């Protein structure tokens, strides 16, 4: 969804919501126009548990009055609050933990960087705390952000720490890179602050992988300089109690480099780390993935015990025709997620992609005497690779979809960087994976043009016993109506139907089964 569309949707959404909220005083919006500043999902352990709507209700001198609505996962309002804030305050993220919701705000009009702060509310909407962050420390970093996006991890933002509170991650403005972290308790008070950066002349990029009750787990890439293509990779663990470093373990092990994809507890209660695997001798920024790895992780000591390294060429050759160590007959492999099923088996969700030459791009290249790019990325079928509970690849199920092509900014882009670029731009068909309500099945939501079907969104639900089922969200074209499909509570997608003529929007959660 592009930003312009989102803006339209959001503005109308508030009219709908405000009618509900002010059901006893519907006319209030006639006096002051109500603008929705932002609407975000409230997450807990990376799952959606509710929604937060934040909008301006009153203009004040050099300030504004805002209203916050907290909705449960079924879109039912459960709490609200009104407070004064800067003129253009935006709500960025919302995280839930132990009956508290942490909201991360920023003031876009601050000239000296962004002013960041978080507010903590109970579910009724009563404010229980506020923790500011020094605006001088904020800066964006595209490379780290792209890598974090590729792995569905948090480059900058917040996450909950089970039973303990919240962790806020801010990218450091220092030339040496790094992050600044704030741990906030469920009482709404700052528990500790911590900074991680490289030594002078070096560069560190970090992003948040996961949190456990014991540790804040971060991925760290240390480089000789900001432009360096190679990097040393580390897994860093900080104590949730005081922010002190528990461990910093290298992720370059036995000639292989590991880039963590996800960290989660399996059915036996063990913490598992799933990583994309590269050859350590190739430069990290441009290297091609050659497989993926499953390891057990101790979140207190940082010990990593490799359970199995899956090499595309050697270990998956029985189900996948590989041309070389990173490319199959169907193209390069982009692994999106590894679903851990209740019976101990696993399903790798991925897509095939290729680097091809565009006829139009070639013409432009000739016309521009070589300065334009003729290269394009072609995204092909999705696949589900099944691995049984003895860690053997059993089968590969392809989900056919039409090829989609995206021009690349330069001909010389490496496969590794290309995969990151496509992920960061949300160009792959894969959208997200969700665990079902009871943890029995996993659902992958993807978009694209599937076989004979028209362009749409499809939910692919994987069952350990029954293969997979697909549910297509085929939406008929209607005059003045636009549909948006986004993530809903587990097992659902949120369908937003926007009527541009009536300026109304209806929200509908759709079951993916």
């Amino acid at each position, binding site marked *: 969804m592009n930003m312009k569309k989102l803006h339209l949707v959001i503005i109308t959404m508030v009219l709908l919501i405000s009618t509900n909220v002010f059901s006893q*005083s519907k006319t209030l919006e*006639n006096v*002051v126009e109500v603008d929705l500043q932002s609407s975000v999902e409230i997450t807990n352990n990376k799952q959606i548990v509710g929604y937060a709507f934040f909008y301006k209700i009153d203009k004040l001198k050099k300030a504004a009055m805002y209203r916050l609505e907290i909705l449960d996962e079924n879109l039912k309002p459960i709490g609200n609050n009104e407070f004064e804030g800067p003129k253009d305050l935006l709500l960025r993220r919302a995280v839930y933990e132990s009956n508290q919701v942490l909201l991360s705000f920023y003031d876009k009009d601050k000239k000296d960087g962004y002013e960041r702060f978080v507010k903590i509310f109970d579910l009724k909407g009563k404010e229980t705390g506020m923790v500011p962050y020094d605006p001088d420390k904020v800066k964006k970093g595209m490379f780290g952000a792209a890598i974090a996006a590729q792995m569905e991890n948090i480059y900058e933002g917040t996450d909950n720490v089970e039973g303990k509170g919240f962790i806020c991650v801010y990218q450091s403005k220092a030339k040496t890179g790094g992050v600044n972290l704030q741990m906030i308790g469920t009482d709404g008070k700052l528990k500790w602050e911590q900074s991680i950066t490289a030594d002078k002349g070096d560069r560190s990029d970090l992003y948040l992988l996961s949190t456990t009750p014991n540790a804040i787990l971060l991925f760290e890439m240390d480089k000789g300089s900001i432009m360096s293509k190679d990097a040393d990779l580390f897994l860093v663990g900080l104590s949730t109690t005081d922010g002190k470093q528990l461990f910093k373990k290298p992720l370059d092990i036995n000639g292989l480099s590991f880039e963590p994809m996800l960290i989660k507890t399996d059915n036996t209660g063990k913490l598992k780390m799933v990583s994309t695997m590269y050859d350590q001798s190739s430069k990290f920024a441009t290297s091609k993935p050659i497989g993926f790895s499953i390891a057990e992780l101790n979140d207190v000591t940082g010990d990593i015990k490799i359970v199995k390294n899956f090499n595309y060429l050697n270990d998956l050759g029985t189900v996948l025709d590989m041309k070389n160590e990173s490319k199959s007959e169907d193209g390069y492999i982009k692994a999106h997620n590894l679903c851990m099923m209740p019976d101990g088996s696993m399903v790798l969700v991925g897509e095939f992609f290729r680097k091809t030459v565009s006829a139009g791009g070639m013409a432009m290249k000739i016309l521009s005497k070589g300065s334009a790019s003729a290269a394009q990325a072609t995204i092909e079928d999705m696949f589900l690779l099944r691995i049984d509970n003895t860690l053997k690849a059993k089968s590969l199920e392809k989900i056919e979809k039409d090829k989609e092509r995206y021009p690349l900014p330069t001909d010389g882009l490496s496969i590794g960087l290309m995969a990151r670029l496509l992920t960061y731009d949300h160009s792959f068909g894969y959208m997200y994976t969700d665990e079902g309500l009871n943890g029995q099945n996993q659902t992958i939501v993807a978009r694209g043009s599937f076989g004979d079907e028209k362009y749409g969104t499809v939910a692919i639900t994987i069952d350990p016993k029954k293969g997979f089922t697909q549910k297509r969200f085929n939406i008929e074209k209607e005059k003045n109506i636009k549909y948006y499909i986004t993530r809903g509570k587990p097992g659902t997608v949120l369908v937003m139907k926007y009527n541009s003529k009536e300026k109304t929007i209806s929200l509908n959660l759709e079951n993916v089964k």
Partner: protein
Amino acid sequence: MPLPTIPSAVKFCFFLFFAGFAYLHSNAQQNDIKFSALSADCYKDKIEQLKKYVVPKFYTDKSSQAWYDEILKGRNKDLLSEFEENRVVKDSLLLDKCNEIFKRIIAANKNFKFDTIHLYINRSVIANAACYGEGTIMVNMGLFLWIDNDDELALVLGHEISHQLLNHGDSKIQKSIAMLTSEEFIQELKNIKKADYGKFERYRKLMKDINVESGKHSRYKESEADSLGVVLIRNAGYNIATAAKVLLKLGKVEELFTSDKLYATKDIFAKTPIEQGYFITKPKYNGLSSVKVTMNADKDIDSIKTHPDCVKRYASISGGNTPVPVNCCTVLNSSYKNYKERAMQELVRNLYESNKLGLCVHLCFFALQNQYDAATYNYFLSLCFSKLFYKDKNLERFNAANAYADPGSNLKEVQDFLFNSSTADLEKLAAYFLSLNPGNNSEDFDFTTMMYNTEVKMKDETSAYDSFKHKYPTSKYNYLIQKK
């Protein structure tokens, strides 16, 4: 843009009444499903009357006339939509019962003028009755589920009739107009419009003052209507002590939507051919709906209760009696069984018709648990599951399942199930509940079968409808087919 309306100033004499719920006889027998006449067809005169209104002559200045016009337009619009959109029915059984009591009240109270008063039956599930002014009194269908005898119904009607006799509606309009046309109000509104900052807060304060003022008056007026209502029904020979019990049910009325003891959801589905895994596996996921939160939104406005405490009202009306325990939803009552059956059938029909399938299934389960006519509710359950299957295909399942119930309640269990169950299970349930009534009544059976075939089996709608209409040219279901 029209001038802002003020909801509390245009809503009149809205009064909630709640009454007792009961079990019915267990020896339920098969009855044909009967539908009451819908208001758009049978109340055309009333609709025309509501479209026309005249500003009374005593509003001489233009500002007062404009406000009266605005307020009345708002009120009539609401009322008009009730009639035009078939939220009112002409149900001979329920309406006759109300009119029978009303006539007895008229006969016993010669000093009052009742000529303008007319009673109507609203299809709302909320146990409620309301006086809309100008003689229009609505009794909600949901109220009949809780009423156990004539005395209780008489107290409800007596109260609403009193609002009309005491002219509470019109006097409230007059008071509101006086306030809205006062120099002070007009000036403050102008100031707010001109202001650069803080408009919202100032406007809210202005409206809050009006709401608080009207809230105080409402409480007084409710007590006044209680007093006159008691006099009216006592004169008519109704037993006040028995009647007053209806007030004790006020605190219990929400049980129909919040209780977890109305039926065992798991046991109901255990008899069906669906996969039982949903009820065996405990969901891992907990969204915010699983956390019990009492919303503090608009707490200032919430505090303006229009009705005094129900236990106090009971004590006051019953002459100081100590409150007795009332067992709503558990007492099997026979004397009002017919009315409850009628009301339940119409409520379920209305919920099905208006796509509130979560609530509809919930009431069907409740009815089956309490030995209401089983065939009727089996048909409606089949219809609901077929429709939900169809809604799922059209991306409208969530709204139809209507998951807005309290955590832990039977209603919530049902709504969650409707939303989370697989479409394969919906199909099985539609077929299962249909199979429980094999040809009991050909018209009902044929309609339910047709809906199953068109909504679940995706058979051609046009030919199925034509065939049904050909077989039953005057079927009570034809309006549903036309609507679809």
